[in-house]
């Protein structure tokens, strides 16, 4: 028997807002009118967000891009009924290599390795059975049944070499073993889904595409350290992610995968949602704790760390969405298999969101150790026609810019640090010759000034001062003294600030000063902005 025909329609935030919902409706209607035996499934993101709305027809994995209402009708009539491809909607390589009909032929996917995102874009995120059919919750069962017990789970995560994907890269197994060692009848697992880094959307895509993977990761974490409750702290700017999480939690509760005596093991664990309300600083773990308890999200001094004194002063693990989504894979495929992915110090894969001046924007997953150049040119397709890449900003407001000459740097925690930036959470913003690096530094500093909680003076006052200087420079009123002061101020703010926001706020300035000093000089000495961005200087 021939495999049944299915159409997978991406139903994530990006594709939805470019017409995905309409596509789904029209397609369904036409299929019904034509009396075809075809299943239309809404899925999470496949990564190709810049081409949305997208639909993939199986069997064959035929990719259709920019599908408008007419296009949906054509797919139904020409492809599903007539058996011919709809030529005008096929993927057309922007490098001029012509059309590509099938998903796996598209260079965008060639250098990717989808491990965490394996199911995203394939299954219906609102149906727990589809996740289970793809071995979902198998890792949980495995963990609960294993004779090695909770300690065995912690050990497996340790051996996998997994490091936190929320930015700092702290070894996840170590964090878990600290929490496990705490003697407290009450412990908590918090999933950090605040995703405050502007330009980053990995966590949103995971939650929208496969929320159960995150719940499963939380369950395994809870079992490993002896917690019975978990919270997902998710930002309210992600309404679809919140909705899918709510559905996932309800379905898991119904099947007894959350709640009491899970899978007959005697293990109890439940998950609830705490809503964030729009403050970057709430991604910082101590601020997140306060916010989750209904207060203003202001950081406090660490130690004590959350693993000792977290939610309601109880030991608490705070892990990023992507970190937790890695956990089921580690248990299911084994820590050794996992540790063979990536580099010596950075195991596994990393999900990045590609945005800015690049042909293929979207979501990608690559093995650690791949070079930034491979990501930007091979996967991202390079800059828009006629432009030249100038730099790639990694790590968002806490990170730095890697100049085009250094793009051969491998993507791992240490190598990125060596060139003056950080892995961060995975937002990659590509900049080209139409971008001004001084202006970009100003943008990030304005962001930090706006998002500073104001609790400590160096951050509150220092950052504003840096903004003032950068504003003067971009207005053409900067002096050489200003440039010197920038460096000194940056050091002061880093040294004296209480939390990570202030401590890293000046990184974008320091890194652009290091690599793009000539642009700073041109602004100050020649009153010139080569990119034409700084309006006062662009004539």
């Amino acid at each position, binding site marked *: 028997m021939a495999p049944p025909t299915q159409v997978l329609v991406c139903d994530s*935030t*990006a594709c*939805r*807002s*470019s017409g995905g919902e309409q596509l789904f409706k029209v397609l369904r209607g036409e299929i019904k009118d034509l009396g075809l035996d075809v299943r239309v499934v809404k899925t999470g993101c496949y990564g190709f*967000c*810049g081409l*949305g709305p997208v639909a993939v027809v199986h069997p064959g994995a035929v990719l259709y891009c920019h599908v408008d209402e007419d296009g949906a009708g054509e797919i139904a009539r020409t492809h599903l009924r007539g058996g011919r491809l709809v030529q005008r909607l096929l993927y057309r390589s922007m490098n001029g290599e012509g059309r590509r009909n099938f998903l796996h032929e598209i260079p965008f996917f060639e250098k990717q390795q989808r491990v965490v995102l394996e199911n995203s874009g394939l299954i219906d995120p609102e149906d727990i059975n589809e996740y289970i059919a793809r071995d979902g919750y198998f890792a949980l069962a495995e963990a609960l049944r294993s004779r090695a017990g909770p300690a065995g789970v912690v050990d497996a995560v340790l051996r996998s070499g997994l490091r936190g994907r929320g930015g700092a890269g702290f070894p996840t197994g170590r964090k878990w073993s600290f929490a496990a060692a705490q003697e407290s009848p009450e412990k908590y697992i918090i999933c950090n889904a605040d*995703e*405050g*880094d*502007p*330009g*980053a*959307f990995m966590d*949103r*895509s995971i939650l929208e595409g496969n929320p159960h993977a995150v719940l499963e990761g939380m369950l395994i974490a809870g079992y490993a350290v002896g917690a019975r409750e978990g*919270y997902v*702290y998710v930002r*309210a*700017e*992600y*309404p679809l992610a919140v909705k899918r999480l709510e559905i996932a939690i309800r379905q898991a509760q119904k099947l007894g995968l959350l709640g009491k005596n899970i899978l007959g093991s005697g293990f109890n664990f439940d998950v*609830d949602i*705490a*809503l*964030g*309300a*729009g*403050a*970057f600083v709430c991604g910082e773990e101590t601020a997140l704790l306060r*916010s*989750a*308890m*209904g*207060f*203003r*999200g202001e950081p406090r001094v660490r130690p004590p760390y959350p693993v000792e004194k977290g*939610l*309601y002063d109880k030991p608490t693990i705070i892990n990023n969405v992507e970190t937790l989504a890695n956990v089921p894979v580690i248990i299911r495929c084994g820590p050794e298999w996992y540790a063979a992915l990536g580099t010596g110090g950075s195991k596994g894969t990393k999900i990045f*969101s590609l*945005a*800015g*001046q690049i042909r293929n*924007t*979207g979501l990608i997953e690559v093995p650690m150790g791949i070079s930034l150049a491979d990501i930007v040119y091979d996967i991202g397709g390079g800059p828009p026609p006629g432009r030249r890449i100038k730099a790639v*900003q990694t790590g*968002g407001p806490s990170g730095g810019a890697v100049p085009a000459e250094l793009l051969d740097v491998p993507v791992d925690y240490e190598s990125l640090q060596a060139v003056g930036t950080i892995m961060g959470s995975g*937002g990659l*913003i590509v*900049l080209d010759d139409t*971008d001004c690096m001084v202006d*970009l530094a100003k*943008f*990030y500093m304005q962001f930090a000034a706006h998002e500073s*909680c104001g609790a400590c003076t160096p951050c509150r006052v220092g950052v504003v001062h840096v903004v003032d200087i950068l504003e003067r420079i971009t207005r053409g009123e900067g002096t050489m003294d200003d440039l010197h002061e920038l460096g000194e101020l940056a050091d002061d703010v880093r040294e004296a600030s209480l939390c990570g926001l202030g401590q890293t706020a000046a990184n974008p300035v320091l890194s652009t000063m290091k690599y793009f000093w000539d642009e700073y000089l041109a602004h100050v000495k020649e009153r010139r902005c080569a990119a034409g961005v700084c309006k006062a200087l662009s004539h």
Partner: protein
Amino acid sequence: MNAEERNYLVLDKIIERYGERPGGLVRVLYKAQELFGYLSPDVQTHVAEKMCLSVGHVHGVATFYAQFVTAPQGKNVVRVCMGTACYVKNAEDILDRFRELLGVETDATTADGRFTLSTTRCIGACSLAPLLTVNEKVHGHLSVEGVARLVELYREDDLDTDEEVSPVERERERERQRPASDQGAAPPPH
């Protein structure tokens, strides 16, 4: 029962449901904002009383987070994304064009109460940069030229469906009816 009384009843139900839980206040305030359009001093006081919190605490939380607004909003709330991806795709020019067309500054409402112009943090659809949201709807791949069309669209939409009084007008009406010397008194019946 008028609409406002009904809203308070719904709000009280939410408080019963989420009031005891951690972070419950944030959820309650979300719901309150959804019901009333913004978090007025009255609504904040009501929430504080029902949840046995100080008004200062509630006010502190309401003003800390970017998602909460404590002033009445226009009928259409335009939020231009100022995240990095949007910024490098000239979101600022788009914001400027809106300012020009609507004749208001950022975080202000037009005199007719039709539009509030604001900005937002990254909403995670950076592939569509530059983008903005109008109320709940995302509009991506914007151009400066496209702004005028968008404004027209929502203006016309308003003319067709404008039956309900915008919260801004309601608030202005209240201010007019409230005698300056008698701030605490209830507004006279219509």
